[in-house]
């Protein structure tokens, strides 16, 4: 009975809506119009979504590229700093009577140029002071200090290390050509230097980066043949893989 009523009501309503259509075309017209507008809006929204998706895809790709780059850079820096700390410790162990570093820095920092003329500071101290600057990321000052060191203590056994760090600082500063020159000089002057493999890997990388793929490849290859089991050989072959 109830169902019947509902059905009846439905019939009446359907009929009513039919008549509404017949009698009031303007309202169905406006309905269609708004539907049409909705359609266009949905289409616009879709395009917007697609564009956003594209942007997100690109950004997340760039982000992952950047974080990979950053990680490599961080590991590189970390390795260098670790080495620096170790060397300093060694230095302290070897020369326990050295004046404390801050005093040296005090005299050194304000006017590095004058430092050239003050040879009474030991080579180890001058070297340590230069290091300290690298550690504090005062790269420009470190460069001046390292330059002075090489001039003032040409016979120091630390001179090769100073040249090595000079090259590293150039590299950090993005002064590739100077870094290349420095490292190249080292390979020619001191083929037996204890860090020669590191120097060569760095040089190879820089050469390749600066479009001299042939020489870069050659030098990386040298590292591998010279000391195939070394960490540096691994690094070199990874670099070579990148360009193949």
């Amino acid at each position: 009975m109830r169902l019947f009523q509902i059905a009846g009501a439905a019939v009446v309503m359907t009929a009513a809506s039919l008549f509404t259509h017949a009698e009031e075309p303007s309202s169905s017209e406006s309905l269609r119009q708004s539907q049409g507008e909705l359609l266009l809006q949905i289409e616009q929204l879709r395009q917007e979504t697609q564009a956003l998706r594209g942007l997100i895809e690109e950004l997340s790709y760039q982000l992952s590229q950047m974080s990979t780059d950053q990680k490599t850079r961080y590991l590189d820096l970390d390795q260098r700093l670790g080495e620096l700390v170790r060397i300093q410790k060694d230095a302290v162990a070897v020369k326990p009577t050295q004046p404390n570093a801050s005093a040296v820095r005090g005299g050194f920092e304000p006017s590095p140029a004058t430092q050239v003329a003050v040879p009474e500071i030991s080579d180890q101290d001058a070297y340590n002071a230069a290091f300290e600057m690298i550690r504090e990321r005062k790269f420009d000052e470190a460069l001046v200090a390292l330059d002075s060191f090489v001039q003032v203590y040409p016979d120091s056994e630390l001179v090769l290390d100073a040249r090595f760090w000079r090259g590293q600082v150039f590299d950090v500063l993005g002064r590739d050509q100077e870094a290349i020159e420095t490292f190249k000089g080292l390979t020619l002057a001191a083929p037996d230097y204890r860090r020669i493999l590191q120097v060569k890997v760095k040089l190879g990388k820089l050469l390749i980066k600066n479009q001299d793929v042939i020489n870069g490849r050659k030098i990386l290859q040298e590292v591998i043949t010279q000391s195939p089991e070394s960490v540096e050989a691994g690094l070199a072959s990874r670099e070579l893989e990148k360009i193949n």
Partner: protein
Amino acid sequence: MSIFKQARAVGIAVILAVLAGCAGQVNESAQGPSKVETDAERAAREARQAEFLAKQEAAKAKQEAASAAASAAAKTAEDLRKGAMAADTLFFFEFDRSDLKQDALDDLDSHAKYLASDRSAKVRLEGHGDERGTRAYNLALGERRANSVARYLVIQGVNRSQIESMSYGEERPLSLSRDENGWSRNRRVELIYQ
């Protein structure tokens, strides 16, 4: 709303008919014993006659109105068809896009109105692209363009079954000139009445 009015009218008519029936019977039986019509009786008869005449008049007027409406409707159907035939059947798109341009809508509305008014009418939508980009991709793009038009028509009241859509991709260019002039003519949907 009007159904209720109608229902009410029908109900009244039924009641009147029943009343009339009763009245008739009363009349007949009354004619026998006495042919004298009382004033009251005459007044009632005249009233009934007047009502009848008025009803007849109303019915006639209604019929006339209906036929006038019908002829008017016939006239608009023809107008709609003419409107559709006069409307553009080429709809153009931007490179790598399938959304309708605003200036296509008026013409599409004309087609939609006609197709909605005549369910026997059928159209084919052929989507096309320009030669730039790859062929299979352009085939898909052509279909998207045809679907864009189809969707719009459906929303405007056309039955899906009245529309057939397909894509030729870049295989059937209108223009062979290799510049934006030619390309813009080739990025199109053609609406073809079957």
